[in-house]
């Protein structure tokens, strides 16, 4: 268990290491600190969004050991020592990932607030299943609510990425 430090008011904090996007961050957190808030407020990784804070909307999706989870339902202490990928870690060497490029090209982004979570869910799907069918795509992103797009272009963008066509014909 993580080392605990108690301050003069009796508040206990835990020394944890979060491996975020390949960087090890050793930080102090209270037991009740939620992973979303720690990523945003302590590590300034604000691409992880707060939408409902109850696991309903998926805006706070991160990959925990490669699997998408709602970071609003994870205590930071529970993520101690684990591998976390946030939206800021999806680009590699300064280049957009194919799913990111495809989302742009298909106009799958509107207000953009669900987009980071959507990208991570899609990325996780394509990693475990490089050739999903439409139903599998829809299921994989069904925990990411989007109020803008009706998901039409998002589903198109994910399927197109799987087929290696990040640019639609009407471009």
């Amino acid at each position, binding site marked *: 268990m*993580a080392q605990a430090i108690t301050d003069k008011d009796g508040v206990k904090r835990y020394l944890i290491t979060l491996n975020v996007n390949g960087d090890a961050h050793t930080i102090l957190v209270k037991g009740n600190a939620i992973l979303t808030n720690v990523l945003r407020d302590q590590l300034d990784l604000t691409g992880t969004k707060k939408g409902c804070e109850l696991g309903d909307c998926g805006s706070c*999706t991160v990959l925990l050991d490669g699997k998408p989870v709602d970071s609003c*339902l994870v*205590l930071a202490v529970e993520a101690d020592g684990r591998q976390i990928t946030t939206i800021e870690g999806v680009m590699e060497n300064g280049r957009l990932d194919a799913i990111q490029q495809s989302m742009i090209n298909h106009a799958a982004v509107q207000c953009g607030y669900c987009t980071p979570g959507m990208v991570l869910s899609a990325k996780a799907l394509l990693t475990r299943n490089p050739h999903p069918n439409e139903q599998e795509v829809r299921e994989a992103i*069904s*925990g990411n609510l989007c109020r803008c797009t009706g998901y039409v272009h998002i589903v198109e963008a994910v399927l197109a990425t799987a087929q290696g066509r990040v640019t639609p014909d009407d471009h």
Partner: protein
Amino acid sequence: MYVPDFEYHAPNTVAEACAILAELGDRATVLAGGTDVLHKMKVGKLAPEHLVSLKNLDELREIREEPGRVVIGALASHNQIYTSQLLQRRYLSLPMAAHTMASNQICNLGTVGGNIVNGVPSADLPPILIALDASIRLTSAKGERTMPLEDFFWGSAQTRMEPGEILTEISIPDQQTTGSTYLKFGLRRSGALAVAAAAVSVQVSGDTLHAVRIVLASAAPTVLRVADAERSLIGRRIDDELLAEAGQFAAQASRPRDSIRGSAEYRKNLVGVLTKRALKKAIDEGHA
């Protein structure tokens, strides 16, 4: 939103966890996947002094085959159950039930143990597990006990779990069933709680129903096995009349209430329809 303050514990063994829980009694809440406990803490329905995290107890994540049974560790996530090749081969209805539960994100966090000890009548896994005659193992500083899962629930969010106990494993015995299924009716197709649901398992030979279990969710204050209905169906020839009758029995036995998801009358109707359809599906599976 915020999570109220608590003292955090993360024991490294089941024994250590039991010792902590024995000491803290009802001042402690066990934290598994967190999808329910943290949700309740955020909305102000739960504020334990201590949270005892099971995150280090990797041995409770295992799903394995043993002589005469399949054992599922209580910390297996819904997605682990959904993707388990062993379960898909042995009891496909269980992975499929796990798949109906919630979003991918929640299914990666939530655990089968949490789904059971939570005790709510809308939980998706208990009905199919009871239909498959599952039993559970509860461990505490005092020792271990097992009981049929069916006996575990006695009221809404009320279970036979004692303070200091941890649900460690679920066990499904080898059985004679020829088919089983879980049918859930939700108001949207993902991330919806059951308005009503029915799990059944059947043993069919020829066109005779030799054994059947019917278990309902969101149909009463607790998950509900409709034993009377089962008895009246056993040994009978399978036809539309039998299925319709089974549905009626189940609907009559159900005691749903009015909720934001549906009136009692509507939910009773759904119980009947789902029972009938689930039976048909399970029977057809056996015939295939």
